[in-house]
């Protein structure tokens, strides 16, 4: 019997770098975007590296991954990489076969684009495909939204980068909270207390898990359980994370909220959180028309009104939030006003207003 291997870590990345990268590692001089989804990096040595970026649905079967491997063999000496936003990138040393590769990718159903002033791929989570805490599906919403916006991925026809992300609950595995547009699954019904709670969960842990102290220990019919002050519930689902006997998912009340204006880049303005644009839209599978319509509307308002280089949040800051709600036709409601800790910091504390 061979010895069981553990703690070897991932394979060393150097093994997977194409020769042109090994040769010019750390010695790149500049890059240029040649056309949508295609860029060239030029090294100090004069060597060139062409990148072709294609969209992927993130959820990939091994059949398709093998197709990508075949394309890498055919065009790139067997080298490829993926991006932090789930795109796949093919790395070529000459430009003569780029169009042929793009044609092959299109034949497989993968549009090329997402570089520069464009909408990149959508960072997203598992949703109903594989998650226990999902308030909406992830892949289906993303597919529906991007079917509508695909032309902004394959063309560079928008003012700046636009990053959309989706998380299927407030746990935010997709960390959507700093996106130009965030699509966030939300619950709106307090957790239901299952009868076997005392067998599945540590009651002190459950009580401690609630950020608003809405959960208290109690005894019902001689059995230890908890009671919930529903008025204090803000649907964070932290209690469900520590206790499976407090399910939050509810077909009648779950849905989607839309957040706008966040970014992580330091370019021009500092990184910032996304802010609430639409508190609730219904889950309406398979196409989520309310969500796709809302996202498309916000994108169109931005495309029409933003100056060059202006990200969603920078655009909104320039025109002001009242104007954003006016232009998008989104109704401003009580839910838009923060009422958790330090809420007052988000109130408008000046008379600098547009009239």
């Amino acid at each position, binding site marked *: 019997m061979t010895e069981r291997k553990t703690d070897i870590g991932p394979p060393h*990345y150097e093994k997977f770098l194409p020769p042109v990268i090994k040769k010019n590692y750390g010695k790149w001089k500049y890059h240029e975007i040649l056309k949508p989804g295609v860029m060239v990096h030029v090294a100090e040595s004069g060597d060139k590296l062409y990148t072709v970026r294609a969209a992927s649905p993130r959820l990939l079967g091994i059949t398709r991954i093998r197709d990508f491997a075949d394309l890498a063999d055919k065009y790139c000496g*067997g*080298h490829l990489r993926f991006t*932090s936003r789930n795109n796949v990138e093919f790395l070529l040393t000459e430009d003569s076969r780029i169009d042929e590769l793009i044609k092959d990718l299109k034949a497989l159903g993968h549009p090329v684009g997402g570089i520069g002033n464009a909408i990149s791929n959508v960072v997203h989570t598992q949703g109903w495909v594989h998650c226990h805490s999902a308030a909406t599906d992830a892949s289906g919403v993303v597919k529906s939204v991007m079917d509508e916006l695909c032309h902004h991925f394959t063309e560079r026809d928008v003012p700046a980068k636009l990053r959309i992300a989706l998380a299927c609950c*407030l746990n*935010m595995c997709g960390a959507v*909270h700093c996106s130009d547009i965030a699509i966030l699954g939300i619950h709106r019904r307090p957790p239901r207390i299952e009868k076997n709670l005392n067998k599945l969960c540590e009651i002190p842990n459950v009580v401690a898990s609630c950020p608003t102290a809405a959960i208290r220990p109690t005894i019902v019919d001689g059995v230890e359980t908890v009671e919930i002050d529903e008025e204090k519930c803000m649907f964070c689902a932290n209690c469900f994370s520590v206790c499976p006997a407090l399910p939050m998912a509810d077909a009648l009340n779950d849905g989607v909220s839309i957040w706008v204006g966040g970014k992580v880049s330091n370019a021009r303005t500092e990184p910032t959180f996304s802010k609430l644009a639409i508190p609730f839209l219904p889950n309406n599978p398979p196409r989520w028309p309310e969500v796709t319509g809302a996202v498309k509307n916000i994108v169109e308002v931005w495309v029409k009104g933003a100056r060059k280089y202006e990200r969603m949040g920078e655009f909104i800051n320039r025109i002001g939030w009242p104007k954003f709600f006016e232009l998008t036709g989104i109704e401003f409601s009580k839910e838009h006003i923060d009422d958790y800790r330090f809420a007052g910091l988000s109130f408008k504390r000046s008379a600098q207003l547009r009239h």
Partner: protein
Amino acid sequence: MAEKSNTPMLDELEKGPWPSFVTQIKNEAKNKDECKDLLRLLERSYGEKIGHWKHGGIVGVMGYGGGVIGRYNDLPEEFPKIAHFHTLRVNMPTGWFYTSEALRTVCDIWEKHGSGMTNMHGSTGDIILLGTVTDELEPTFAELTENGFDLGGSGSDMRTPSGCVGPARCEWACYDTLHLTNDLTQTFQDELHRPAFPYKFKFKCAGCPNDCVASIARADMSIIGTWRDEIQIDQAEVKKYVDGGLDIHRDIYANCPTRCVTWDSKTSTLTIDDENCVKCMHCINVMPKALRPGKDRGATILLGAKAPIVEGALLSSVLVPFMKIEPPYQEIKDLVERIWEFWSEHGKNRERVGEIMQRVGLGNFLEEIEVDPIPEMVAHPRENPYVFYEEYYEEGDEDEEEEE
């Protein structure tokens, strides 16, 4: 006549220009019964508008506490092939570079032991092998390690570190993000595989302030490349941009956060007041042929970002304004060890580093990890006059001091 589909709602999502995840599952369903069940279960969720997956259970591979996420459906009799449908997180090669051979190896292992479905990649960066049964976990792990792969993090451990493409293909990388990411991953294998922290801890290595790995929003420790000398200017290339239609005033100056760029059209000279430059990257992004980050490069270390659970979302804040980032990275590792030591001892269950910093106060936290407070750490000094002074003099204290 064609057989009637049992997934009409999902079939709708095979139409349209964006690549379809449904097509991906259907491709694998040709060979894998569990993917047939997965399609039926998802169709049912679409009809009922609710998910059908249960909380994880404790499953894993021997000697590891992380890397496997237990998953069961709540209708096992109707969907028996995915009654268990666990996830393995496989630590990706740093920078997400692959050879076709390495990719095929992972595919072959997953064809043999699992559903054939993956995420390339998960939110933290791992290769996600989506769906297998408990009995296949150990054999999958054995074959992965035999082929040079290992599991990533999950639960209350150091999560799989990730980094941007860095010097492999970016002229803006201010340090070697791939080397540091890989070094941290290898140095802290025990912390990665055996959860012993109050909650998760994420590293993300971004080569420049564009932060392509979203480290400032998504990592407990965000290591963002920067420089402290002058932006390198190629005046001839600047002129070419201007001749090509770039308006320095409108496109650069008006977007510069400190208005530190000036353009003399008579002499065609671009001047940057580097002392006032905050390294935002905008001008470099717009003129990549003409401008480059300076030569004295390193990184800003920021701490504490997280998604909302438990106490609300946080962005990382500055801990070290500038640090040289060079192997063996001892300075950064010492800092990490001090942070982990304090957090492990005093952190509450499921309390992230960003939250304990706020609970105990950044000032106190800094004392504990032996870092001096400096103005770069705050957007502005406090506005709130309620200060927790820790000591006060009592009458006679001065006399005692004199006697000593």
